[in-house]
């Protein structure tokens, strides 16, 4: 019994947690911007998928991983602008545009994969150059923690730094302040002389860039291949993490790690006879429950505050 548990909670479990969580962390950090700017962005799925494809395609063409990442980011900017054009400028329904973006990305990547590169299903050759893994000196020598934290693909560490950078951007710079205002009080922001439309476009472009990172990490981080439908609803999970973490970078980071952990645990539990299909359903169910909890508790808080205020008012009147 104890041996089995020890076998499940091994170094590999935590390594996989980090591996699974990283693309979600990157995409969710992008989703933070749009969420704060007041855009419901469910198009992240398509953005990640496109990023993954572009990264592989150009890593293959130029035989260089950095070129793949660079192009993935450039395409991410274009998608962000495209998304903003519809959602912000033309005021289309963000839900419809997001869903359509996902369908479009899924169709276009498979079409190009099959008809331009002549591959079906998975595309993996040696010519696709991957991103380097980073060994952290000193840290890697610590038993147990060392192998968990060290030796990952470079974007894992970049994503950790970005959590901090995004937090500073959102809460300690004027741009972050304006971006949050563009979602909460666009009229107030306009009165203050900043164009909320510009901030929303910026948020959308930043989201495109981060999803480009997520896609590039997904395809070039470990396996150096592209698979049809590779994003595998990570965009939706990232969206769930943003909601889950109440659009606060460190909390969103924690939510993404939790998802990664559940995913990794599911695969491990398969060895004890727990079916992986059922464990794979757990994160999604957990999101629904968490959402219910968040919304219900915030409603409660509002009600309590309202009660308190009316009480104070009544007291004030009595005095």
């Amino acid at each position: 019994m104890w041996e089995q548990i020890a076998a499940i909670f091994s170094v590999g479990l935590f390594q996989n947690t980090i591996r699974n969580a990283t693309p979600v962390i990157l995409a969710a950090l992008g989703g933070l911007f749009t969420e704060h700017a007041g855009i419901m962005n469910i198009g992240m799925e398509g953005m990640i998928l496109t990023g993954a494809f572009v990264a592989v395609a150009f890593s293959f063409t130029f035989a260089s991983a950095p070129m793949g990442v660079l192009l993935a980011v450039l395409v991410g900017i274009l998608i962000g602008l495209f998304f903003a054009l519809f959602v912000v400028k033309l005021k289309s329904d963000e839900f419809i545009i997001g869903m359509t973006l996902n369908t479009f990305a899924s169709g276009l990547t498979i079409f190009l994969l099959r008809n331009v590169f002549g591959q079906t299903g998975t595309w993996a050759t040696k010519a696709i150059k991957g991103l380097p893994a980073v060994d952290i000196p000193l840290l890697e020598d610590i038993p147990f923690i060392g192998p968990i934290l060290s030796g990952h693909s470079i974007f894992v560490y970049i994503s950790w730094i970005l959590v901090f950078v995004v937090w500073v951007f959102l809460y300690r710079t004027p741009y972050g302040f304006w971006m949050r205002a563009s979602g909460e009080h666009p009229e107030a922001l306009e009165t203050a002389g900043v164009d909320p439309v510009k901030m929303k476009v910026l948020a959308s472009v930043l989201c495109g860039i981060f999803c480009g990172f997520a896609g590039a990490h997904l395809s070039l981080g470990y396996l150096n291949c592209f698979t049809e439908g590779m994003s595998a609803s990570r965009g939706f999970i990232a969206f769930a993490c943003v909601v889950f973490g109440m659009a606060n970078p460190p909390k969103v980071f924690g939510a993404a790690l939790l998802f990664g952990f559940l995913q990794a645990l599911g695969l491990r539990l398969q060895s004890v006879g727990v079916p992986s299909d059922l464990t794979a359903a757990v994160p999604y169910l957990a999101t629904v429950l968490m959402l219910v909890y968040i919304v219900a508790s915030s409603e409660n808080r509002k009600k309590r505050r309202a009660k308190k205020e009316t009480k104070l008012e009544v007291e004030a009147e009595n005095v």
Partner: protein
Amino acid sequence: MKILKKIDTKYIATLVFSIVVALLIGAVLMAVTGFSPIKGYSAMISGALGNPRLIGNTLEKAMTLCLLGLATAVGAKGGLFNVGGEGQLFFGALAATMTGLWLSDLPAVIVTAVALISAVVVGGFYAWIPAVLKVKIGVSEVITTIMLNTVAIKICTYLVNGPWNSPLKSLTKGTDYLPETLRFTKLITASNLSTGFIGGAVVAFLIWYIMKMTSVGLEMKVTGENYRFAKFAGLKSDKIMIWSMVASGAICGLVGMLLIYGYQGRMTDSVSNEFYFDGMLVAMIMNYNPLGIIIMSVFFAILSTGATMMDLTVGISAQIYDIIFSVIIFLMAAQKGISTWVDHKRLQQKAKAKARKEIDANVGTDSSNI
């Protein structure tokens, strides 16, 4: 004549324009990747309508798209976005299959009736959960339905490949096949088209009738368009919202049953390949207009089955269908946005001109006073 008057010519012009441009973009994509667009599109048309069998498949696909599109429309008219139709469809299909298998000794009529009820109830129940969460607590139904989709598909995959997997060895995993007596009779031999099509058509007509011709439909519309107004007008908006979502889920469950009893014959983990999302996009293109959805699903069914055949014969990937589909939506969204933007600008200019005139007039009177 009355119906003809109601048709929005501007909308139809946009639609036709978008479709033509999307097909042209598809042609460009084919040409760029080294295929002849004429060959591609002719393969698509002959692949969808070339012989009776293919026409049958196309009609079956049209029915599926149409019912799922109507399911989206029913939810959307009531004010809730049902993105979870895929999961409801999976559970409906599973329920119908398992009741069929468990009760296979009873007379076929009874079994079919029970299977129908179970599919509808299960599908409806699975839509009821997010509806109640939205109406009573305020959790966004878009997110919950997306999440519940995956939950349903994973659970079905587990059951179909695990405990309820067929003991007979076959190439792909799935439940046992339903006995022939239970399956719907084919309308065209060897095609996917069965008597289920008639049932589907009746349901589609009923939905159109209820939404357009009855007070229930009007109440749904009012609730969906303006929740507060509906509430002040004395409608039971919460109830209407929940029930329109349940109806949407029930239709998805029914489609699941029609797929199994119509041509698939057993439940597998690939009973639906994101069919619901296609239906949803059709509904979005047609602005949730029931009649429009019915007509447009035939067009998209031709594209869809044609694209699959084109993939097999010419080698152009069937995903061109997804691309054409989404380009149409983008173009229509763009047109809508641009026209409202232009209208807005025009109104603004008019208001400015009017204000200027007033100022001029005021200045005139002011100077006379001095």
